[in-house]
């Protein structure tokens, strides 16, 4: 993990053009370095390798189409066992060819399939139509037996199969139009026909049983077979137009029954053939997709890596001779040997004549921050970085967060039972982590919880500990060692009798009576407090004092951590002008408060508890420099308090004016010039040698090469600016001390809330099930426990857990880290194939 971020250096890579691709592929596999863009002014279309990137994108497009087809056919894409490396440029064409061939084949097959399906639909509709119009004809043929009837209005005449001949005798030609129309349109169709043709047509229709799919829209709806008989040519045209309007599928109407039977037979065989062919086509399509799915994953990875490599190659610049690529990278100093090895490997793979090499160069820019972490520390690292990534080579608060964060969480969450449940849950996630990591978790919330499994495990373990201390397990206390309070002693010492019990609702156990209180409980709070009515009064006092103590310790630790930064960045003066006054201010006031708390706990016992003074009154009196009317806690208290107040008050102007005045004196003072020059020389010299240090002071000038230049005329030393910043810092620190100490009282508040919620849940839910004394009462206990468990998990674990997590996080981010951490750095983002997102995964295709 590391105390501070790693030392980084800027390096130049000289890559031979032939093997550049392989070298960068090696670097991508190892994930060592971060590339800088050497062509920032060039747009993405003007870059060197833009055609290669276009080719990659074309391949990605085809892959996307392929994956979509595979997903539609419900075929799973198996993952490759060994992740493939980026393909050499000569293999790229092969992959491209394969993909293009697949694309062409797939689109052809899909088109054919669609045509066949359309054909099948037409034939099916025709069959239905023929079948149903036969029933129309035959139902009418019954009327035929009565002989043709000539009526005045031929439109009302029902025609029959042979009836058309009788009509022809009249010189009129009867026409038929038959087809299918969607059921929802039938009424409108009929009305339109009536209005337009003015009764010269007869429409008969019947519904088709089977619902057919409409290939254009893809919906499945009911259709209706209709038969229109009309009289006259013009009417025929009108009817035709109306049918077109309503998107009817028209089919030729057979004249005779035999014709109809013939057509139906041929249709039947054709439909069977078509279904056969369709089935074979689908099988073939599935086969093709299945074969493609085997290599789809590895193709996808190869294309992704190739595209990334070309993108990086675009960031490099070509040298004058055009034979060598130059890349600038940020590399951790400890990884330089690995970098050299990777370049050698890449050169070897690319069959380069001249090997590529790396050269370290000095730089003025601030390097990015790298803090290495493993699977355990990465969770804690990420919650620290969520506030801000540390400056380069700044002391990182992350290692301490490993312990302090779960501890502060546990102080607010302290319950043995809930801690145990949380631990078990986290333990399950940790033990099955390999299985979960392989399976790509889709849910974002689950992923967040899974990434924090080690944090949850630590929080659970620490909660078990604080649960033991608070002696709270699902709101009940555990009597492990035997309570130190004895009720019997009150009887044996003649304080209470049976009459006392009957006449008093509440009685007080007096610890001053012998044998009632036999010493403190070995670990934690005595279990008898669980049954005491004044439990909260006792616990509140204890928890508030504990919160203040923990808060002052945490904040002092934060102030002390700033010393490490000052020493590292060669700002020794800040130790005397910033650290010392800050620490003195904090400890003289709030350290003294902690001392008073401990003193009162140790000096006063049950015997003189009535005389124990209120610490708060004494603290306030200290500020007001009063206190003559109250008895002192210890001899010499007044004197000590005055002394501490004076020290604290004096440290404020030191904090306010010390640093600005010192820097001013440094810049404009005469005597220190020589010292300053020597100082600067060493600074400058060392900067050339070890380029990793950067002085954080805004005012000391850095001339790298000429360390002996005139330091009398600095670039900018803005006294006003520095003084303003320091004033803000001083006010923030001093007022912040008070507010931050009070802020730590949330440790008390949340633990109180958790305990009360837990107690209420037990009293209102579990007690109902337990108090049932009837025979069937036992059956009530089962669902009552279920409700209790569900509410415990949802309210007490999830809601309270998240709340305590958030508050512990806030205490770290604000109260702890603002004492020493600046957090304005940039995170090191190495070029690593495994960290690149995949376009297909984002689309949900994989």
């Amino acid at each position, binding site marked *: 993990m590391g105390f501070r971020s790693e030392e980084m250096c800027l390096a130049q890579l000289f890559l031979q053009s032939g093997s550049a691709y392989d070298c960068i592929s090696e670097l991508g596999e190892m994930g060592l370095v971060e590339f800088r863009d050497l062509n920032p002014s060039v747009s993405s279309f003007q870059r060197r390798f833009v055609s290669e990137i276009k080719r990659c994108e074309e391949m990605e497009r085809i892959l996307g189409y392929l994956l979509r087809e595979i997903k539609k056919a419900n075929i*799973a894409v198996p993952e490759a066992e060994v992740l493939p490396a980026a393909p050499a440029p000569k293999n790229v064409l092969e992959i491209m060819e394969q993909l293009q061939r697949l694309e062409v084949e797939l689109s052809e097959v899909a088109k054919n399939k669609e045509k066949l399906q359309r054909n099948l639909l037409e034939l099916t509709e025709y069959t239905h139509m023929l079948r149903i119009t036969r029933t129309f004809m035959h139902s009418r043929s019954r009327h035929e037996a009565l002989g043709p009837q000539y009526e005045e209005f031929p439109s009302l005449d029902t025609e029959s199969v042979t009836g058309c001949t009788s009509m022809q005798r009249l010189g009129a030609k009867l026409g038929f139009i038959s087809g299918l129309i969607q059921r929802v349109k039938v009424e409108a169709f009929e009305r339109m026909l009536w209005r337009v043709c003015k009764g010269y047509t007869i429409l008969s229709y019947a519904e088709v049983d089977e619902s057919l799919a409409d290939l254009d829209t893809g919906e499945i709806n009911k259709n209706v077979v209709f038969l229109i008989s009309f009289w006259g040519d013009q009417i025929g045209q009108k009817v035709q137009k109306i049918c077109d309007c309503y998107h009817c599928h028209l089919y030729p109407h057979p004249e005779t029954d035999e014709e109809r039977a013939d057509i139906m037979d041929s249709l039947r065989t054709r439909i069977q053939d078509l279904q056969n062919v369709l089935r074979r086509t689908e099988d073939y399509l599935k086969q093709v997709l299945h074969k493609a799915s085997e290599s789809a994953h590895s193709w996808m990875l190869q294309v992704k890596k190739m595209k990334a490599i070309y993108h990086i190659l675009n960031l490099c610049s070509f040298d004058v001779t055009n034979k060598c690529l130059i890349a600038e990278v940020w590399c951790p100093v400890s990884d330089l040997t690995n970098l050299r090895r990777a370049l050698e490997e890449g050169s070897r793979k690319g069959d380069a004549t001249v090997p590529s090499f790396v050269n370290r160069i000095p730089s003025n820019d601030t390097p990015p921050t790298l803090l290495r972490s493993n699977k355990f520390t990465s969770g804690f690292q990420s919650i620290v970085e969520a506030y801000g990534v540390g400056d380069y080579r700044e002391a990182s608060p992350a290692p301490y967060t490993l312990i302090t964060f779960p501890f502060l969480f546990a102080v607010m969450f302290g319950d043995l039972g809930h801690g145990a*449940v949380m631990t078990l849950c986290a333990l399950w996630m940790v033990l099955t982590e390999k299985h979960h990591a392989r399976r790509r978790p889709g849910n974002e919330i689950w992923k967040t919880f899974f990434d924090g499994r080690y944090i949850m495990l630590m929080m659970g373990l620490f909660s078990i500990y604080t649960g033991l201390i608070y002696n709270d397990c*699902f709101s*009940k*206390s555990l*009597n492990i060692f035997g309570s130190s309070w004895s009720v019997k002693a009150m009887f044996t010492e003649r304080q209470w009798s049976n009459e006392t019990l009957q006449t008093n609702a509440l009685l007080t156990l007096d610890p001053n009576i012998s044998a009632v209180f036999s010493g403190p409980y070995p670990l934690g709070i005595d*279990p008898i407090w*669980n*049954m005491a009515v004044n439990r909260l009064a006792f616990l509140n006092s204890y928890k508030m004092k504990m919160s203040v103590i923990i808060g002052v310790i945490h904040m002092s630790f934060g102030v002390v951590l700033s010393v490490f930064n000052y020493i590292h960045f060669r700002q020794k003066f800040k130790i005397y002008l910033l650290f010392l006054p800050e620490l003195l201010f904090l400890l003289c006031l709030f350290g003294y408060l902690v001392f008073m708390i401990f003193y009162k706990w140790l000096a006063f016992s049950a015997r003189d508890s009535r005389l124990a003074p209120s610490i708060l009154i004494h603290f306030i009196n200290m500020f007001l420099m009063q206190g003559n009317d109250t008895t002192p806690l210890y001899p010499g208290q007044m004197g000590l308090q005055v002394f501490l107040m004076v020290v604290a008050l004096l440290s404020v102007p030191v904090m306010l004016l010390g640093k600005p005045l010192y820097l001013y004196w440094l810049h404009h003072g005469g005597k220190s010039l020589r010292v300053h020059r020597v100082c600067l020389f060493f600074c400058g010299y060392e900067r050339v040698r070890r380029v990793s240090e950067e002085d954080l002071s805004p005012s000391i000038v850095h001339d790298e090469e000429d360390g002996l230049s005139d330091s009398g005329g600095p670039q900018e030393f803005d006294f006003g600016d520095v003084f303003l910043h320091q004033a803000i810092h001083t006010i923030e620190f001093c007022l912040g001390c008070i507010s931050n100490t009070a802020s730590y009282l949330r440790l008390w508040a949340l633990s109180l809330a958790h305990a009360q919620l837990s107690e209420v849940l037990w*009293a209102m839910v*579990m*007690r109902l*099930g*337990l*108090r*049932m*004394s009837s025979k069937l*009462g*036992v*059956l009530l*206990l*089962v669902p009552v*426990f*279920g409700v209790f*468990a*569900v509410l415990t998990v949802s309210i007490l674990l999830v809601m309270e857990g998240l709340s305590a997590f958030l508050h512990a996080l806030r205490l770290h981010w604000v109260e702890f880290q603002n004492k020493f951490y600046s957090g304005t750095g940039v995170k090191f983002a190495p070029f690593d194939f495994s960290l690149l997102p995949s376009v297909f995964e984002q689309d949900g295709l994989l």
Partner: protein
Amino acid sequence: MPSLLFCGPKLAACGIVLSIWGVIMLTMLGIFFSAKSAVLIEDVPFTEEDIRNDKNPPQTVYGLYNQVGINCFIAAAIYVGVGAVSLCQVRLNKRQEYMVT
């Protein structure tokens, strides 16, 4: 035979977790009630008459303690049954998942 599967994989898993928790916690509660723990006094259904009419104190209250303890043990046993049913459901779900793919 109609399928015995009536809940999905997640519900069955929740069932298993709930029953394990139920068995452990109710058994411990049963033990603590049988040990006549003073902290659990408020969960025992005793009334004012029980104490006043007690011929041989505190046997009535102890008897009630035992009763609640036995209730807890019976409930724990029922949760063992619930756990077994959930386990069956989990196995059936796994088998169905295996057969579909």
